[in-house]
């Protein structure tokens, strides 16, 4: 192993010219990646981490001005002309993007997208390139690679597509791979597989990897060294043990404190929820079935015979991966999707049987928070109107009373009263989510449906929103169905947990039963796959997960180099 850096940033400085003036995205950054090493560049949105990585490919848009140097294969990227730059791209440095659903061209066959880079860089041509493409697909663990190569991207699942993207990055044997949030869009079990695959790359091919992520668990799982970025600057840099276990910089400390840790249970962020005292059911779901009609096929059963309940003052976590039907349940409870059969009792009344004004009256007692704060607020209404809307719809109070109520709520979610006249686009993500929480609480609901309320938020914001949420729950005492894919978040506030897979309930029980002592195979898989932000503990968890997979008779995903050596 040589110690010569495969990727080096020297005093990198990037500014963008925009409609609203100059934005200084990266401020004099120094970092290097050596062969066979994973360097994690950690930061929250707007920290400049993706911009930094993009300079390595020379792919920044025209309004960027770049100072300093990015060095790949002993060449300074900014000094190269178009042709030299293209020779570097894909050949010496390759990129794995965040969104596997959009990273592949929808009208070109997977195999052809793989052979393209090989032909451009003269690695292989024609039939030989195709053969190598099939080998690569097999190497990244895609079964039936011969057939898959002839398919179009829309015929592959998300995890499958991310493997194709990784295979594509590998196709020309680059010395360094930049992985920009490679697992953010994936389910947790798929994430674990992709991370295993990436890890085997550096071990078997001695590739250097620059891993860009905001997920501390992924960092702990993968990284040899960590650089923490804040507003365009690296504020702390060291081995992953140093940075994650003994952070020096206040920002790093703050960031790590904000990460929910699976297994730490309630009160991680200062406030612990009260124990449930009431036996009265706020929500009672029985034999619930939801079907989607499909043209020419039999209807798709998204939720299949599901029963659970939520007591007054209780938070129940509804957990599952994409396609499990958890969000469908949430939407059906809100009356957005019709139920096929079964009954849903909210405070004793059957929601599926009510119509007209009775239904409207019942709806007043249910509040809702959606995942994406940017999408869940009407961009054309000021914050005050957004929060007052439930009062308006149900014709409650005079306009002065409504204004008072909005001010109270703004205080409750810790936003200044001056936010009343602001528009959503003037607020940050966390502030917008506070607004949607305030809107959900406007009518003092007895039941709150929270659909992934924190998954679109940055780490540190997530923690403060969770803390505030817990406080509000204690204060207002509402029952809550908390839908999330993030087990650590559920762990920090739920009383009971329901685990779903393919539209069915796999397991249910108290938080301790499900998250600490589960006996169900699927739950154990989920738990094993969720990374924790502690490299030593995570190494142990990884070994445990591999043991668990072995127990289920499955193999750990890794690069199968036999396919490539032929």
């Amino acid at each position, binding site marked *: 192993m040589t110690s010569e850096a495969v990727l080096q940033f020297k005093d990198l400085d990037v500014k963008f010219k925009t409609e609203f003036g100059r934005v200084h995205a990266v401020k004099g950054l120094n970092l290097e990646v050596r062969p066979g090493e994973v360097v994690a560049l950690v930061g929250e949105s707007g920290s400049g981490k993706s911009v930094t990585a993009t300079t390595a490919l020379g792919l920044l848009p025209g309004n960027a001005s770049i100072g300093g140097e990015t060095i790949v294969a002993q060449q300074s990227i900014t000094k190269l002309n178009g042709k030299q730059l293209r020779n570097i791209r894909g050949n010496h440095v390759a990129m794995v993007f965040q969104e596997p659903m959009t990273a592949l061209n929808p009208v070109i066959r997977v195999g052809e997208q793989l052979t393209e880079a090989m032909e451009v860089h003269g690695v292989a041509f024609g039939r030989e390139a195709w053969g190598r493409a099939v080998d690569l697909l097999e190497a990244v663990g895609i079964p039936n690679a011969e057939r898959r190569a002839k398919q179009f991207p829309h015929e592959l699942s998300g995890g499958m597509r991310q493997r194709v993207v990784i295979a594509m990055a590998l196709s020309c044997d680059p010395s360094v791979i930049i992985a920009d949030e490679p697992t953010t869009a994936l389910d947790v079990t798929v994430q674990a597989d992709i991370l295993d695959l990436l890890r085997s790359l550096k071990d078997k091919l001695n590739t250097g990897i620059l891993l860009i992520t905001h997920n501390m668990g992924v960092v702990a799982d993968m990284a040899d060294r960590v650089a923490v970025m804040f507003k365009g600057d690296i504020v702390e840099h060291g081995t992953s043990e140093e940075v994650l276990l003994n952070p020096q910089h206040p920002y790093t400390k703050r960031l790590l404190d904000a990460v929910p840790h699976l297994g730490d249970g309630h009160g991680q962020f200062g406030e612990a929820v009260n124990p449930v005292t009431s036996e009265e059911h706020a929500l009672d779901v029985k034999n619930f079935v939801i079907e989607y009609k499909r043209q020419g096929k039999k209807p798709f059963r998204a939720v299949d015979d599901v029963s659970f309940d939520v007591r007054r003052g209780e938070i129940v976590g509804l957990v599952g991966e994409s396609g499990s039907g958890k969000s469908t349940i949430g939407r059906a409870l809100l009356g957005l999707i019709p139920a096929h059969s079964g009954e849903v009792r909210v405070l004793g009344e059957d929601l599926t049987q009510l119509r007209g004004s009775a239904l409207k009256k019942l709806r007043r007692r249910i509040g809702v928070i959606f995942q994406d704060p940017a999408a869940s607020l009407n961009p054309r209404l000021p914050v005050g109107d957004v929060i007052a809307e439930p009062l308006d719809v149900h014709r409650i109070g005079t306009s002065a009373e409504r204004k008072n109520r909005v001010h109270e709520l703004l205080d409750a979610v810790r936003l200044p009263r*001056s936010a009343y006249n602001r528009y959503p686009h003037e607020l940050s993500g966390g502030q917008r989510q506070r607004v949607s929480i305030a809107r959900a609480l406007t009518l003092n609901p007895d039941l709150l449906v929270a659909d992934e309320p924190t998954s679109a938020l940055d780490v540190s914001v997530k923690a403060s929103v969770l803390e505030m949420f817990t406080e509000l729950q204690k204060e207002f005492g509402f029952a809550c169905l908390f839908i999330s894919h993030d087990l650590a978040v559920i762990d920090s506030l739920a009383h009971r947990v329901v685990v779903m897979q393919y539209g069915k309930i796999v397991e249910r029980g108290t938080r301790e039963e499900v998250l600490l002592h589960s006996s169900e195979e699927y739950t154990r898989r989920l738990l094993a796959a969720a990374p924790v932000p502690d490299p030593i503990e995570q190494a142990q968890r990884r070994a445990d997960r591999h043991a668990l997979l072995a127990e289920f008779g499955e193999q750990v995903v890794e690069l199968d180099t036999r396919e490539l050596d032929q």
Partner: protein
Amino acid sequence: MSDNTNPTQPVQPEADQYSVEDVIDQTTDKSYSQGQLVLRRFLRHKAAMVALITLILIIILAFTSIGYGPIPGWWDKDYLTTSTVQNGGAPTLSLWPFQIGEHPFGQDTIGKDYFAMVMRGTQVSLFIAFTVGIIATFLGTAIGAIAGYYRGITESLLMRVTDLFIIIPALVLAAVFGRTFGSNVPMLAVMLGVISWTGLARLVRGEVLSLREREFVAAARAIGTPSPTIIRRHVLPNALGTIVVNATLLISSAILTETAISFLGFGVRAPDTSLGLLIQTYQNALTTRPWLFWWPGIFILGIALCVNFIGDGLRDAFDPRQSMD
């Protein structure tokens, strides 16, 4: 966003310095709504501003010069009275030295003042275009929104009517209505409006289809907001860009349709006149009396061009993604 290097700002406590959540900018009390931002961008769009001013000038010129209905204008001739042909009817307008003269746009073959005729034609064409624009925008928005939000019958009806317009071109229908109602300008305008809404309706439907899946609409439904209120308060304001931009396109295409059917002889009938009718009447005069051909054409082109540029400016203002460098 507060800038940490700004010396006039007090140094923030360390804990807050590393907060990602920005404080709401309280230095300005003024808060811009989306509408105000759009207006600001539109006012800065030079081509659109020039076009808007030109269009307003054309409208003022057309309606004040020869007056409208009973209201008299400042021009002393009208579009019906004939007089002796002077100097072969050549235009007296000249820019250097600037003079308007007796017949700035010349006279037609029987000595009618061509300026007054072109102004009348412009009035009629503008009246029809804006009436069509208003009616078609209203119908298109309503039908598109209902089809997109409720789906069901309205949607399939809309799609079938759209299919119908693929096989019967709008111009053909317009000509048939022109043949029927041509002598009655307001009626013609209404009928043209009634057949022009489908394009806008399709676009509004598409926009509403995607808006109704947005979470803020789901949030409003979950609260129990009635559907008409959701459409009015949440859906349509967010589809405003599509509606406004395409309303301008409707106006410019209505100008062209009206002049085209008048040219074919199915639109406005003599003694009233329109820009298309003037061109049809004098299409063979290009060699002998070119002004009779050029003036109405330039006015049609000018109006349509202005409206299209305004539309382009609005598009950029509503959707700055495509115009930002």
